[in-house]
C-alpha cells in the first residue's frame, strides 16, 4: 500500500471501507464505562473537552491503539492525553493518583476479602 492512503485517511475515517458481516452485538455498560460516559458529558458541558476534541483525541491514539483498546478505553486514554496537552494535568499527577486509587482499592479488598 502506498503511504498516500495513510495521509488521506485518518484511522476513524472508515466510511466506505470494505468490512465484514454485521454482528448485532450489544453489552450493558460496566460501571466504569458508564462513569466514563458521564465524565465525557460533564467535560463537554464545562467546555473542558468537547465532543469533536474527544473524537480527534481518539484518532490521535493511532490505528494500533484504536484497534486494540475497547471503546471506553480509547475515550479515557484520549481524555488523559488531551488534559496533558491543555496543561490541566501532568502524567505524574495521573501516576500518583492511580497509585493512590490502587492502594485504596487494595485496602478495601483486604478489609472485605469476600466482597
Amino acid at each position, binding site marked *: 500500500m502506498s503511504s498516500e492512503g495513510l495521509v488521506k485517511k485518518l484511522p476513524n475515517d*472508515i*466510511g*466506505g471501507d470494505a468490512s465484514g458481516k454485521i454482528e448485532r*452485538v450489544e453489552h*450493558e455498560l460496566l460501571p466504569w464505562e458508564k462513569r466514563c460516559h458521564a465524565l465525557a458529558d460533564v467535560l463537554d458541558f464545562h467546555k473542558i473537552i468537547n*465532543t469533536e476534541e474527544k473524537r480527534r483525541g481518539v484518532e490521535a491514539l493511532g490505528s494500533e491503539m484504536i484497534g486494540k483498546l475497547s*471503546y471506553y478505553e480509547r475515550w479515557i486514554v484520549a481524555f488523559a492525553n488531551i488534559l496533558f496537552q491543555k496543561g*490541566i494535568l501532568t502524567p505524574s499527577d495521573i501516576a500518583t493518583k492511580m497509585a493512590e486509587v490502587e492502594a485504596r482499592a487494595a485496602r478495601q479488598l483486604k478489609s472485605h476479602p469476600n466482597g
Partner: protein
Amino acid sequence: MHVENHDHDEPGHDHHHDHGHSDPHEEISITELPGYYDMLETAVRELLVERKLFGADEIRRQIEVLDSRTPALGAKVVARAWVDGEFRKRLLEDGRKGCEELGISFYDDTQLIVLENTPEVHNLIVCTLCSCYPRPVLGLPPDWYKLKPYRARAVYEPRAVLEEFGTHIPDDVEIVVSDSTAMVRYLVLPMRPAGTEGLSEEELAALVTRDAMIGVIPVEYQERAA
C-alpha cells in the same frame, strides 16, 4: 425540563455488581482490584474534582440522566407524529424543538434532524467517524452501531447491510443514508404499519423499536386474531 424515568426494571438495565459501583462515592463491595482503565477513569475524575473543575455530584447526576434515556422516549415522539399531523410537521422542521415539546430535554448542544420514511424513501442513520447518535431520545447506541462493519458499509452498500438485519428494501425505493456529526444527529421516523388505525398513541409507541428509529428494521404490527 428533565425527563427522569427511573425505570430500573426495564430489560437491559439489570445492574452488574461485580465491578464496583456507578456511584463514584460508593466503592465498598469490590471483590477484585479494578482494571487499569477503571482506575485511570477514577484518577482523572478525582483529580479534576479536586481542582474544582466540576463537582462529583455532576457525574452522579449525569449517570442518572443517562439511565433515564431509553428508546421509549423516541417511540413516544414517533407515535405522536403518527397521530398528530401538525406535530409531525413541526418535528420535521425542527427535531429538537419537537422533542422538547414533549418534555424531552437535550442535555447537550446537538441538533436533531428527523427523517421521514415514505413508500418512496427509506432512511438509515450511521456515524462513519465514530458513534454520534441521538442519545437524548434513544439513550446510548448499541455496540454494532459503533463497530467497523456497520460504520464502513452502511454508506456504500446500505441494501446489503439492511438485508443482514432481515430488512428487504425493494429496488424502486430510494435509500438515503445520513452520516451523523458531533453537532447534528438524526432520528428516523418510520412508517406507521398498516392495520394500526384503531390503536391508541400509547399502543403505537409500544410498537416502535430502537432499531426502527435507526432505520435498520421497519415497525411491525401483527394483528391479534380475534
